[in-house]
Protein backbone atom coordinates (compact mmCIF):
# COMPACT_ATOMS: atom_id res chain seq x y z
CA UNK A 1 0.00 0.00 0.00
CA UNK A 2 2.91 2.34 0.75
CA UNK A 3 4.32 1.66 -2.71
CA UNK A 4 0.91 2.43 -4.24
CA UNK A 5 0.82 5.73 -2.37
CA UNK A 6 4.27 6.69 -3.64
CA UNK A 7 3.37 5.77 -7.21
CA UNK A 8 0.26 7.94 -6.81
CA UNK A 9 2.32 10.91 -5.57
CA UNK A 10 5.33 10.53 -7.86
CA UNK A 11 3.19 9.67 -10.90
CA UNK A 12 0.91 12.71 -10.48
CA UNK A 13 3.88 15.04 -10.03
CA UNK A 14 5.88 13.27 -12.74
CA UNK A 15 3.25 13.93 -15.40
CA UNK A 16 3.27 17.64 -14.49
CA UNK A 17 7.07 17.78 -14.63
CA UNK A 18 7.09 16.07 -18.03
CA UNK A 19 4.44 18.43 -19.36
CA UNK A 20 6.24 21.44 -17.85
CA UNK A 21 9.45 20.50 -19.69
CA UNK A 22 7.48 20.06 -22.90
CA UNK A 23 5.80 23.44 -22.27
CA UNK A 24 9.19 25.14 -21.90
CA UNK A 25 10.44 23.41 -25.04
CA UNK A 26 7.36 24.63 -26.94
CA UNK A 27 7.85 28.18 -25.68
CA UNK A 28 11.51 28.04 -26.72
CA UNK A 29 10.49 26.75 -30.14
CA UNK A 30 7.98 29.56 -30.61
CA UNK A 31 10.58 32.11 -29.48
CA UNK A 32 13.30 30.82 -31.80
CA UNK A 33 11.01 30.50 -34.80
CA UNK A 34 9.49 33.95 -34.25
CA UNK A 35 13.03 35.38 -34.09
CA UNK A 36 13.96 33.74 -37.40
CA UNK A 37 10.71 34.90 -38.90
CA UNK A 38 11.53 38.40 -37.64
CA UNK A 39 14.96 38.32 -39.28
CA UNK A 40 13.42 37.12 -42.51
CA UNK A 41 10.96 39.99 -42.38
CA UNK A 42 13.73 42.48 -41.64
CA UNK A 43 15.82 41.12 -44.50
CA UNK A 44 12.82 41.31 -46.74
CA UNK A 45 12.26 44.90 -45.69
Amino acid at each position, binding site marked *: *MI*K*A*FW*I*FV*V*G*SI*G*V*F*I*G*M*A*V*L*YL*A*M*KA*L*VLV*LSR*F*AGEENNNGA
Partner: protein
Amino acid sequence: MEHNIISEIIYSCGIFNLSLGNIIMWIIGMTLIYLAIAKKFEPLLLLPIGFGIIIANLPLADLMKPGEGLVWRFYHYGIQWEVIPPLIFLGLGALTDFGPLLARPSLIFLGAGAQVGVYITFFCAKLMGFSLDEAAAIGIIGGADGPTTIYVTSKLAPHLLGSCAVAAYSYMALVPIIQPPVIKLFTTKAERQIVMKKSRRVSTRERIMFPILATLVVILLFPPSAPLMAMFMLGNLFRESGVVERLSGAAQNELMNIVTIFLGVSVGATMDAATFLRPQSLMIFFLGAFAFASSTATGVIVAKIMNLFLKDKINPMIGAAGVSAVPMSARVVHVMGQEENKKNYLLMHAMGPNIAGVIGTIIAASIFIGVLK
Protein backbone atom coordinates in the same frame (compact mmCIF):
# COMPACT_ATOMS: atom_id res chain seq x y z
CA MET B 1 -17.15 -49.96 -31.76
CA GLU B 2 -20.06 -48.13 -33.39
CA HIS B 3 -21.01 -46.86 -29.97
CA ASN B 4 -17.52 -45.35 -29.48
CA ILE B 5 -17.57 -43.62 -32.87
CA ILE B 6 -21.01 -42.15 -32.22
CA SER B 7 -19.98 -40.88 -28.78
CA GLU B 8 -16.77 -39.39 -30.18
CA ILE B 9 -18.74 -37.53 -32.85
CA ILE B 10 -21.19 -36.29 -30.24
CA TYR B 11 -18.45 -35.12 -27.87
CA SER B 12 -16.56 -33.39 -30.69
CA CYS B 13 -19.61 -31.18 -31.35
CA GLY B 14 -19.36 -27.80 -29.71
CA ILE B 15 -23.02 -27.77 -28.79
CA PHE B 16 -22.56 -30.64 -26.32
CA ASN B 17 -19.72 -28.76 -24.62
CA LEU B 18 -21.61 -25.52 -24.22
CA SER B 19 -21.69 -23.98 -20.74
CA LEU B 20 -23.93 -21.36 -19.17
CA GLY B 21 -20.88 -19.09 -19.06
CA ASN B 22 -20.50 -19.32 -22.85
CA ILE B 23 -24.13 -18.30 -23.34
CA ILE B 24 -23.80 -15.35 -20.95
CA MET B 25 -20.72 -14.22 -22.87
CA TRP B 26 -22.62 -14.46 -26.19
CA ILE B 27 -25.28 -12.20 -24.68
CA ILE B 28 -22.58 -9.73 -23.60
CA GLY B 29 -21.03 -9.86 -27.09
CA MET B 30 -24.40 -9.34 -28.74
CA THR B 31 -25.13 -6.44 -26.38
CA LEU B 32 -21.91 -4.72 -27.48
CA ILE B 33 -22.79 -5.32 -31.14
CA TYR B 34 -26.25 -3.88 -30.47
CA LEU B 35 -24.76 -0.80 -28.77
CA ALA B 36 -22.36 -0.35 -31.68
CA ILE B 37 -25.04 -0.63 -34.38
CA ALA B 38 -28.16 0.80 -32.77
CA LYS B 39 -26.63 3.39 -30.43
CA LYS B 40 -23.43 4.13 -32.41
CA PHE B 41 -21.33 3.55 -29.25
CA GLU B 42 -17.72 3.49 -30.53
CA PRO B 43 -18.82 1.14 -33.34
CA LEU B 44 -15.36 0.77 -34.88
CA LEU B 45 -14.18 -1.01 -31.75
CA LEU B 46 -17.23 -2.34 -29.95
CA LEU B 47 -18.51 -4.19 -33.01
CA PRO B 48 -15.37 -6.31 -33.58
CA ILE B 49 -14.92 -6.68 -29.81
CA GLY B 50 -18.49 -7.97 -29.49
CA PHE B 51 -17.95 -10.45 -32.31
CA GLY B 52 -14.60 -11.46 -30.82
CA ILE B 53 -16.36 -12.27 -27.54
CA ILE B 54 -18.86 -14.51 -29.32
CA ILE B 55 -16.26 -16.49 -31.28
CA ALA B 56 -13.96 -16.84 -28.26
CA ASN B 57 -16.81 -18.53 -26.40
CA LEU B 58 -17.55 -21.19 -28.99
CA PRO B 59 -16.59 -24.48 -27.32
CA LEU B 60 -13.87 -26.55 -29.03
CA ALA B 61 -13.36 -23.90 -31.75
CA ASP B 62 -9.97 -23.17 -30.15
CA LEU B 63 -9.63 -19.81 -31.87
CA MET B 64 -7.62 -18.59 -28.88
CA LYS B 65 -5.63 -21.78 -28.34
CA PRO B 66 -2.01 -20.69 -27.79
CA GLY B 67 0.19 -21.50 -30.77
CA GLU B 68 -2.69 -22.73 -32.92
CA GLY B 69 -5.79 -20.53 -32.86
CA LEU B 70 -6.27 -17.95 -35.61
CA VAL B 71 -7.39 -15.18 -33.27
CA TRP B 72 -4.63 -16.10 -30.81
CA ARG B 73 -2.14 -15.30 -33.60
CA PHE B 74 -3.73 -11.86 -34.06
CA TYR B 75 -3.54 -11.36 -30.30
CA HIS B 76 -0.02 -12.71 -29.90
CA TYR B 77 1.66 -10.94 -32.81
CA GLY B 78 -0.51 -7.86 -32.65
CA ILE B 79 -0.97 -7.08 -28.98
CA GLN B 80 1.51 -9.20 -27.02
CA TRP B 81 4.25 -8.15 -29.43
CA GLU B 82 3.11 -4.55 -28.92
CA VAL B 83 2.60 -3.90 -32.63
CA ILE B 84 -1.03 -2.80 -32.91
CA PRO B 85 -1.31 -0.01 -30.28
CA PRO B 86 1.72 1.90 -31.68
CA LEU B 87 0.32 1.52 -35.23
CA ILE B 88 -3.00 2.95 -34.04
CA PHE B 89 -1.00 5.86 -32.63
CA LEU B 90 0.67 6.34 -36.02
CA GLY B 91 -2.79 6.84 -37.49
CA LEU B 92 -3.92 9.06 -34.61
CA GLY B 93 -0.84 11.24 -35.10
CA ALA B 94 -1.68 11.63 -38.78
CA LEU B 95 -5.22 12.64 -37.80
CA THR B 96 -4.20 15.09 -35.05
CA ASP B 97 -3.89 18.84 -35.44
CA PHE B 98 -1.62 20.20 -32.71
CA GLY B 99 -2.42 23.77 -33.78
CA PRO B 100 -4.76 24.55 -30.84
CA LEU B 101 -2.11 23.40 -28.36
CA LEU B 102 0.73 25.26 -30.09
CA ALA B 103 -1.41 28.39 -30.19
CA ARG B 104 -1.63 28.38 -26.40
CA PRO B 105 1.04 26.07 -24.93
CA SER B 106 -0.05 26.65 -21.31
CA LEU B 107 -3.11 24.46 -22.02
CA ILE B 108 -0.74 21.50 -21.88
CA PHE B 109 -1.06 21.57 -18.07
CA LEU B 110 -4.74 20.70 -18.36
CA GLY B 111 -3.71 17.49 -20.08
CA ALA B 112 -1.48 16.81 -17.09
CA GLY B 113 -4.25 17.75 -14.63
CA ALA B 114 -6.60 15.11 -15.94
CA GLN B 115 -3.97 12.43 -15.34
CA VAL B 116 -4.20 13.02 -11.59
CA GLY B 117 -7.55 11.23 -11.83
CA VAL B 118 -5.71 8.25 -13.32
CA TYR B 119 -3.51 8.04 -10.23
CA ILE B 120 -6.43 8.58 -7.84
CA THR B 121 -8.23 5.65 -9.48
CA PHE B 122 -5.03 3.59 -9.36
CA PHE B 123 -4.83 4.17 -5.60
CA CYS B 124 -8.54 3.40 -5.10
CA ALA B 125 -8.18 0.17 -7.11
CA LYS B 126 -5.29 -0.85 -4.89
CA LEU B 127 -7.42 -0.07 -1.81
CA MET B 128 -10.14 -2.34 -3.24
CA GLY B 129 -7.76 -5.27 -3.32
CA PHE B 130 -6.29 -5.25 -6.82
CA SER B 131 -2.55 -5.82 -7.26
CA LEU B 132 -0.35 -2.86 -8.24
CA ASP B 133 -0.17 -4.04 -11.87
CA GLU B 134 -3.93 -4.53 -12.07
CA ALA B 135 -4.57 -1.17 -10.38
CA ALA B 136 -2.35 0.56 -12.97
CA ALA B 137 -4.29 -1.05 -15.84
CA ILE B 138 -7.58 0.07 -14.25
CA GLY B 139 -6.32 3.58 -13.45
CA ILE B 140 -5.20 4.25 -17.01
CA ILE B 141 -8.82 3.83 -18.16
CA GLY B 142 -9.27 7.37 -16.79
CA GLY B 143 -6.95 8.63 -19.51
CA ALA B 144 -9.85 7.87 -21.88
CA ASP B 145 -7.41 6.55 -24.45
CA GLY B 146 -8.22 3.07 -25.77
CA PRO B 147 -4.88 2.12 -27.37
CA THR B 148 -2.92 3.29 -24.30
CA THR B 149 -5.25 1.33 -22.01
CA ILE B 150 -4.72 -1.78 -24.15
CA TYR B 151 -0.96 -1.20 -24.26
CA VAL B 152 -0.60 -0.82 -20.48
CA THR B 153 -2.98 -3.67 -19.66
CA SER B 154 -1.31 -6.08 -22.08
CA LYS B 155 2.03 -5.33 -20.43
CA LEU B 156 0.99 -5.27 -16.78
CA ALA B 157 -2.24 -7.25 -16.37
CA PRO B 158 -3.06 -9.15 -19.61
CA HIS B 159 -5.79 -11.18 -17.85
CA LEU B 160 -7.77 -7.91 -17.47
CA LEU B 161 -7.35 -6.85 -21.10
CA GLY B 162 -10.92 -7.51 -22.18
CA SER B 163 -12.57 -5.86 -19.18
CA CYS B 164 -10.31 -2.78 -19.24
CA ALA B 165 -10.61 -2.30 -23.01
CA VAL B 166 -14.40 -2.66 -23.03
CA ALA B 167 -14.69 -0.32 -20.03
CA ALA B 168 -12.45 2.26 -21.73
CA TYR B 169 -14.30 2.23 -25.06
CA SER B 170 -17.76 2.03 -23.50
CA TYR B 171 -17.15 4.98 -21.21
CA MET B 172 -15.58 6.95 -24.08
CA ALA B 173 -18.92 6.61 -25.83
CA LEU B 174 -20.59 7.77 -22.61
CA VAL B 175 -18.46 10.92 -22.22
CA PRO B 176 -21.47 13.18 -23.03
CA ILE B 177 -23.31 11.58 -20.09
CA ILE B 178 -20.44 11.24 -17.57
CA GLN B 179 -18.71 14.61 -17.96
CA PRO B 180 -21.44 17.34 -17.80
CA PRO B 181 -22.60 16.66 -14.21
CA VAL B 182 -18.98 16.49 -12.99
CA ILE B 183 -18.11 19.74 -14.80
CA LYS B 184 -21.16 21.47 -13.31
CA LEU B 185 -20.30 20.20 -9.84
CA PHE B 186 -16.85 21.79 -9.94
CA THR B 187 -17.64 25.10 -11.70
CA THR B 188 -19.86 28.11 -11.04
CA LYS B 189 -22.21 29.54 -13.66
CA ALA B 190 -20.00 32.62 -13.97
CA GLU B 191 -16.96 30.43 -14.65
CA ARG B 192 -18.82 28.45 -17.30
CA GLN B 193 -19.70 31.72 -19.06
CA ILE B 194 -16.09 32.89 -19.46
CA VAL B 195 -15.42 33.74 -23.09
CA MET B 196 -11.88 32.98 -24.19
CA LYS B 197 -9.82 35.14 -26.52
CA LYS B 198 -9.23 33.94 -30.06
CA SER B 199 -6.00 31.95 -30.34
CA ARG B 200 -3.04 33.13 -32.44
CA ARG B 201 -2.23 31.63 -35.83
CA VAL B 202 0.34 28.84 -35.75
CA SER B 203 3.04 28.78 -38.44
CA THR B 204 3.83 25.74 -40.60
CA ARG B 205 7.38 25.68 -39.20
CA GLU B 206 6.04 25.31 -35.65
CA ARG B 207 3.75 22.51 -36.74
CA ILE B 208 6.61 20.64 -38.40
CA MET B 209 9.10 21.17 -35.58
CA PHE B 210 6.69 20.21 -32.79
CA PRO B 211 6.51 16.44 -33.39
CA ILE B 212 10.32 16.21 -33.53
CA LEU B 213 10.68 18.31 -30.39
CA ALA B 214 7.97 16.45 -28.47
CA THR B 215 9.52 13.09 -29.42
CA LEU B 216 12.92 14.15 -28.10
CA VAL B 217 11.62 15.72 -24.89
CA VAL B 218 9.09 13.07 -23.87
CA ILE B 219 11.15 9.99 -24.77
CA LEU B 220 14.30 11.38 -23.16
CA LEU B 221 12.34 11.94 -19.95
CA PHE B 222 10.15 8.82 -20.12
CA PRO B 223 11.83 6.10 -22.23
CA PRO B 224 9.02 3.52 -21.81
CA SER B 225 6.77 5.93 -23.71
CA ALA B 226 8.88 5.44 -26.86
CA PRO B 227 6.70 2.98 -28.85
CA LEU B 228 3.53 5.06 -28.50
CA MET B 229 5.10 8.52 -28.54
CA ALA B 230 7.42 7.86 -31.47
CA MET B 231 4.64 6.50 -33.67
CA PHE B 232 2.21 9.25 -32.61
CA MET B 233 4.67 11.96 -33.56
CA LEU B 234 5.81 10.22 -36.75
CA GLY B 235 2.20 10.15 -37.90
CA ASN B 236 1.89 13.84 -37.10
CA LEU B 237 5.10 14.64 -38.98
CA PHE B 238 3.67 12.82 -42.01
CA ARG B 239 0.64 15.10 -41.77
CA GLU B 240 2.39 18.39 -41.17
CA SER B 241 5.33 17.95 -43.53
CA GLY B 242 2.95 18.16 -46.48
CA VAL B 243 5.30 16.09 -48.66
CA VAL B 244 4.11 12.55 -47.85
CA GLU B 245 0.39 12.79 -48.30
CA ARG B 246 0.22 9.16 -49.39
CA LEU B 247 1.86 7.98 -46.18
CA SER B 248 -0.31 10.28 -44.10
CA GLY B 249 -3.42 9.03 -45.87
CA ALA B 250 -2.39 5.40 -45.48
CA ALA B 251 -1.69 5.87 -41.75
CA GLN B 252 -5.04 7.63 -41.22
CA ASN B 253 -7.13 5.27 -43.30
CA GLU B 254 -5.99 1.88 -44.62
CA LEU B 255 -3.46 1.03 -41.92
CA MET B 256 -5.60 2.32 -39.07
CA ASN B 257 -8.66 0.45 -40.34
CA ILE B 258 -6.77 -2.82 -40.76
CA VAL B 259 -5.17 -2.77 -37.32
CA THR B 260 -8.47 -1.70 -35.75
CA ILE B 261 -10.06 -4.92 -37.03
CA PHE B 262 -7.30 -7.08 -35.55
CA LEU B 263 -7.30 -5.07 -32.31
CA GLY B 264 -11.04 -5.32 -31.79
CA VAL B 265 -11.35 -9.03 -32.55
CA SER B 266 -8.34 -10.01 -30.46
CA VAL B 267 -9.36 -7.90 -27.47
CA GLY B 268 -12.88 -9.37 -27.60
CA ALA B 269 -11.47 -12.86 -27.89
CA THR B 270 -9.56 -12.50 -24.61
CA MET B 271 -12.94 -12.38 -22.85
CA ASP B 272 -13.77 -16.02 -22.33
CA ALA B 273 -16.31 -16.92 -19.68
CA ALA B 274 -13.74 -18.24 -17.20
CA THR B 275 -11.71 -15.02 -17.11
CA PHE B 276 -14.50 -12.47 -17.54
CA LEU B 277 -17.42 -13.72 -15.43
CA ARG B 278 -15.99 -12.70 -12.07
CA PRO B 279 -16.96 -10.02 -9.55
CA GLN B 280 -13.61 -8.42 -10.44
CA SER B 281 -14.99 -7.41 -13.86
CA LEU B 282 -17.89 -5.53 -12.28
CA MET B 283 -15.44 -3.71 -10.02
CA ILE B 284 -13.37 -2.74 -13.09
CA PHE B 285 -16.46 -1.26 -14.74
CA PHE B 286 -17.27 0.69 -11.58
CA LEU B 287 -13.68 1.93 -11.25
CA GLY B 288 -13.60 2.78 -14.97
CA ALA B 289 -16.56 5.15 -14.54
CA PHE B 290 -14.92 6.58 -11.43
CA ALA B 291 -11.67 7.04 -13.41
CA PHE B 292 -13.45 9.07 -16.11
CA ALA B 293 -15.25 11.20 -13.52
CA SER B 294 -12.16 11.83 -11.38
CA SER B 295 -9.98 12.70 -14.41
CA THR B 296 -12.66 15.16 -15.54
CA ALA B 297 -12.77 16.69 -12.06
CA THR B 298 -9.00 17.05 -11.69
CA GLY B 299 -8.73 18.61 -15.16
CA VAL B 300 -11.34 21.23 -14.20
CA ILE B 301 -9.66 21.87 -10.83
CA VAL B 302 -6.27 22.44 -12.49
CA ALA B 303 -7.94 24.90 -14.91
CA LYS B 304 -9.35 26.80 -11.92
CA ILE B 305 -5.93 26.87 -10.26
CA MET B 306 -4.38 28.18 -13.51
CA ASN B 307 -6.95 30.98 -13.56
CA LEU B 308 -5.54 32.27 -10.27
CA PHE B 309 -2.32 33.15 -12.13
CA LEU B 310 -3.49 33.94 -15.66
CA LYS B 311 -4.25 37.43 -16.93
CA ASP B 312 -6.48 36.15 -19.74
CA LYS B 313 -8.77 33.74 -17.90
CA ILE B 314 -9.57 30.38 -19.38
CA ASN B 315 -12.97 28.77 -19.17
CA PRO B 316 -12.36 26.02 -16.56
CA MET B 317 -14.68 23.67 -18.42
CA ILE B 318 -11.93 23.09 -21.00
CA GLY B 319 -9.96 21.33 -18.24
CA ALA B 320 -12.44 18.46 -18.61
CA ALA B 321 -11.15 17.95 -22.16
CA GLY B 322 -7.79 17.03 -20.62
CA VAL B 323 -8.99 13.44 -20.63
CA SER B 324 -8.06 12.28 -24.12
CA ALA B 325 -11.36 11.05 -25.70
CA VAL B 326 -10.55 13.12 -28.79
CA PRO B 327 -12.66 14.94 -29.94
CA MET B 328 -15.68 13.82 -27.93
CA SER B 329 -14.80 15.59 -24.67
CA ALA B 330 -13.90 18.83 -26.51
CA ARG B 331 -17.31 18.70 -28.19
CA VAL B 332 -19.02 18.16 -24.83
CA VAL B 333 -17.28 21.23 -23.42
CA HIS B 334 -18.19 23.26 -26.52
CA VAL B 335 -21.86 22.32 -26.26
CA MET B 336 -21.92 23.16 -22.55
CA GLY B 337 -20.26 26.50 -23.29
CA GLN B 338 -22.92 27.29 -25.90
CA GLU B 339 -25.68 26.44 -23.43
CA GLU B 340 -24.22 28.94 -20.96
CA ASN B 341 -23.37 31.67 -23.46
CA LYS B 342 -24.36 31.59 -27.13
CA LYS B 343 -21.28 33.63 -28.09
CA ASN B 344 -18.91 31.14 -26.50
CA TYR B 345 -17.01 29.00 -29.02
CA LEU B 346 -14.88 26.68 -26.92
CA LEU B 347 -14.26 23.86 -29.41
CA MET B 348 -10.80 24.92 -30.62
CA HIS B 349 -9.79 26.02 -27.11
CA ALA B 350 -10.85 22.63 -25.73
CA MET B 351 -8.97 20.78 -28.46
CA GLY B 352 -5.68 22.02 -26.92
CA PRO B 353 -6.08 20.18 -23.60
CA ASN B 354 -7.76 17.33 -25.45
CA ILE B 355 -4.60 16.67 -27.48
CA ALA B 356 -2.38 17.39 -24.48
CA GLY B 357 -4.38 14.69 -22.68
CA VAL B 358 -3.20 12.11 -25.22
CA ILE B 359 0.44 13.00 -24.48
CA GLY B 360 -0.35 13.12 -20.74
CA THR B 361 -1.87 9.65 -20.82
CA ILE B 362 1.18 8.30 -22.68
CA ILE B 363 3.42 9.80 -19.96
CA ALA B 364 1.20 8.40 -17.17
CA ALA B 365 1.33 4.98 -18.85
CA SER B 366 5.08 5.26 -19.20
CA ILE B 367 5.47 6.00 -15.48
CA PHE B 368 3.35 2.95 -14.58
CA ILE B 369 5.35 0.70 -16.90
CA GLY B 370 8.68 2.14 -15.76
CA VAL B 371 7.89 1.65 -12.07
CA LEU B 372 6.03 -1.67 -12.22
CA LYS B 373 7.52 -3.61 -15.13
